[in-house]
């Protein structure tokens, strides 16, 4: 297969992939560092290269509300946001999932205010973990491209019907030029058939959506969402397998790097995972038996897969580019701890809050953090959480 290659930033990759998908409706509001996604897409609309109805709304709350309305008509719907914009959508995120609208949302992960900051950090997306959205992270412009296309297929699967968000970090991915292997329109069309919807808003039918449900049925509806989330685990794996066949690039819910004979592991997600792999290479050159695990699928959290990947490892360094205050661990560390607790042959867990507001954790700093984890393990500390890479 001859691979077509194009130089694109992460944002451009999302826009170009969305162009191949050609969603029926996009409603979006600009926010740095997401703006270029919708800016490029609005050019495609303006040039008549796509037939998407583009709704430039007045806020992210309205963006997500418009997406919900459009999705309920059976339309294929896309939007993008970041940070404060995603926070403003938060109320409607629950409406989207509760009404089973398979909306796809690209997140250009950015720190929250205050103090105001436009740079990369993943807290914005991680705190949406309870909203019943499938949640993916991407490491590169290539993964941004790939996850844009896959997200629609996961979200719209009849066993799932849940909205799906995927995140790429502000600037270091969204604004960085990388080599991207691109797909053709016909390849995407065969991978992603038209949405097939039984129940929808339609001029000829009488349906009610979003009605009041009290003690009688509310909990059953929530339980259905949980079952959909369980299905999303299986469907995401299937979709990634199919995508791997299509592209020849291995795409999995977890990426395992040199883990087979490893005594130690570095767990991360997003762009940090790229740095973790580079550090693994440096440490391996020094004779360290270390590997890396990248979490691509954050919700549903692939607990058993993670256990299998980390079973027998002595100590795990978790590089978490997010912040939570007064918590027992970092956001991802808490999930890892829950996933591993009570199982046999589990590693000690060492979480590190790092990289907030675009702060760079350099490769030598990651090596230092790795040595800290080894030290904690040697003195029998089973779980630790530290902040790293800040002025003390």
């Amino acid at each position: 297969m001859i691979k077509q290659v194009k130089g694109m930033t992460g944002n451009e990759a999302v826009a170009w992939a969305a162009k191949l998908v050609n969603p029926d409706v996009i409603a979006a509001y600009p926010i740095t560092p997401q703006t270029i996604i919708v800016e490029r897409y609005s050019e495609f609309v303006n040039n008549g290269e796509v037939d998407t109805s583009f709704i430039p709304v007045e806020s992210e709350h309205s963006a997500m509300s418009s997406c919900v309305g459009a999705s309920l008509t059976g339309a294929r719907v896309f939007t993008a946001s970041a940070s404060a914009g995603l926070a403003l959508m938060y109320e409607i995120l629950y409406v989207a999932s509760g009404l089973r609208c398979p909306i796809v949302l690209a997140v250009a992960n950015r720190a929250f205010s205050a103090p105001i900051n436009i740079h990369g950090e993943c807290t914005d997306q991680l705190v949406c973990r309870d909203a019943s959205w499938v949640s993916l992270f991407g490491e590169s412009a290539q993964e941004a491209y790939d996850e844009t296309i896959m997200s629609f297929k996961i979200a719209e699967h009849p066993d799932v019907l849940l909205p799906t968000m995927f995140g790429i970090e502000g600037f270091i991915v969204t604004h960085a030029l990388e080599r991207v292997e691109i797909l053709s329109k016909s390849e995407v069309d065969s991978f992603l058939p038209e949405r097939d919807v039984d129940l929808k808003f339609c001029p000829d039918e009488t349906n009610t959506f979003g009605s009041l449900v009290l003690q009688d049925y509310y909990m059953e509806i929530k339980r259905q969402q949980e079952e959909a989330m369980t299905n999303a685990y299986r469907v995401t794996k299937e979709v990634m397998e199919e995508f791997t066949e299509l592209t020849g690039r291995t795409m999995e819910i977890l990426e395992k790097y040199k883990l087979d004979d490893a005594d130690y592991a570095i767990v991360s997600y997003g762009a940090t995972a790229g740095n973790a792999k580079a550090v693994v290479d440096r440490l391996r050159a020094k004779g360290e038996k270390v590997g890396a695990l990248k979490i691509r699928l954050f919700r549903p959290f692939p607990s058993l897969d993670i256990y299998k990947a980390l079973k027998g490892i002595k100590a795990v360094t978790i590089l978490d580019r997010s912040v939570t205050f007064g918590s027992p661990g970092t956001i991802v560390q808490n999930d890892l701890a829950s996933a591993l607790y009570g199982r046999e042959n589990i590693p000690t867990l060492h979480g590190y809050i790092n990289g907030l507001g675009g702060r760079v954790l350099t490769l030598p700093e990651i090596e230092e953090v790795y040595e800290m984890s080894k030290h904690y393990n040697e003195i029998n500390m089973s779980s630790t959480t530290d902040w790293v890479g800040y002025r003390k």
Partner: protein
Amino acid sequence: MNTIFNLYIFVCRVNLYYNTMVISLAEIMDVRINGRGGQGAVTASRLLGEAAILEGQYVHAFPSFGPERAGAPVTSFARISAEPFTEKTEVYEPHIVVVIDPTLLEDVPVADGLRAEGTIVVNYDGLKESLMKYFDTTHVNFYKVSGSKIAIEEIGRNVPNLVMLGALIKVTRIVSLESLIKVTVNRFPGILGEKNVSAIKRAFEEVE
């Protein structure tokens, strides 16, 4: 046996090159472009990256974003390798530095972090030797070209960003002149592209 020996030689060479432990067998070249807001440092790193991608190389090229105003010192980066790499950090120890604006020499430590045996190319109209006033030239390869003069004469404006790339690729061969011209014409179709190509070619010839 021969292969192993070659690999050994290669590793030694990389070792020498990095003047440190072996980081990776693939040679990654880190480029930093120092300019001022409005001079096209961002476009320069982008087009350098696009040219490398055109040649089948792997790239991570990006600007350092902040509250930049026109005239304020800015940096952009391009990390380029013939082999895939996953590192995603800013560049702190560049192999190559390009200085787009000569006035930066007075204001910014332009050779900061430049590796031993690294290369620095400066837009500078004076004698090459007088660059020694501005940074330690003992362990680096340093070059100059009258980028602003070329830009004004060929493009009609003092926008020497792509001009400096012309000089850079002559002394480093990080991408070919042909690739750089292709991406320039693609980015700036018409007369502006032609003028930039003339300027790039002149810098390619005149760098010393």
